[in-house]
């Protein structure tokens, strides 16, 4: 298949992001302009073609959102660009304040990430054993209620120490494999 045909077919697929009514009424016009625009970059180096496709995708995304929200057509991202420029100017005008704000933001982000990782790994993630629900904890309890960790010469001895009512749930072979 020739390259322009493939590009047009891909662009036609991208038109699926548009609302149905707009796609039906505009498809022929959009494909025509796209075909002409693509013909100019078809033989260009890949960075040029990549920029071209990114522009086409951004254009369709902006049009799709604007059409659904009933926004009047204008240069895409014009307001966002203005906001970013204003923010950059204000940030460069007071570098100390900007550094403090960025540092606070970084600390907050780091604390949030660490908390999230700890909660996930310590509380939510399953233990790093096969069938972790079969693990048992063995404690010795004295008559006065004192508890301590018993020591066993090997896993088989530990398995033998498990009371009979729990023994069915403990597979010494599996314990040995983990040893």
């Amino acid at each position, binding site marked *: 298949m020739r390259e322009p045909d493939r590009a047009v077919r891909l662009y036609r697929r991208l038109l699926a992001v*548009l609302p149905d009514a707009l796609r039906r009424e*505009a498809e*022929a*016009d*959009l494909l*025509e*302009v*796209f075909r*002409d*625009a693509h013909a100019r970059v078809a033989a260009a180096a890949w960075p040029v073609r990549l920029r071209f496709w990114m*522009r*086409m995708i*951004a*254009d*369709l995304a*902006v*049009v*799709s959102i*604007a*059409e659904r929200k009933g926004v*009047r*057509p*204008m*240069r*895409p*991202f*014009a307001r966002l*660009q203005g906001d970013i420029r204003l923010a950059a100017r204000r940030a460069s005008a007071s570098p100390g304040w900007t550094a403090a704000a960025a540092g606070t933001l970084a600390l907050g982000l780091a604390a949030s990430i660490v908390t999230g990782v700890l909660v996930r790994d310590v509380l939510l993630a399953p233990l790093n054993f096969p069938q972790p629900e079969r693990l048992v904890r063995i404690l010795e309890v004295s008559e006065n209620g004192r508890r301590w960790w018993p020591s066993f010469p090997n896993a088989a001895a530990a398995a033998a120490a498990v009371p009979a009512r729990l023994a069915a749930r403990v597979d010494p072979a599996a314990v040995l494999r983990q040893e």
Partner: protein
Amino acid sequence: MQPDPRDLLPLRPVAFAVLAALADGARPGIDILDEVNATVPGRPLLGPGTLYRLMRELRQDGLIERIPRGTRSDDERQAFHALTPAGRRVMRAEAARLRRTLKLASPQGSE
């Protein structure tokens, strides 16, 4: 009675650029896209979708019209777009408005 073109002023720069691109006659969509991207400063560039919505709005306002495919001998595959008489009046009124604004902004005697 014809509507007063001043009712539609001021035009947005992209809308004015589209009308200006058609001042010399009917043109296909790709030529209009190139002209608008060359004359309206700033990035990112206009794409086919944004241009289509803009031209649809100008058509609804009666400022431009579409010449169906195959009615021109230049290229039967392409649809052409042209100014309507109302569109030409609005374009001229906007150009005059911009000239007045420029005159106001210019130091006296510099012109």
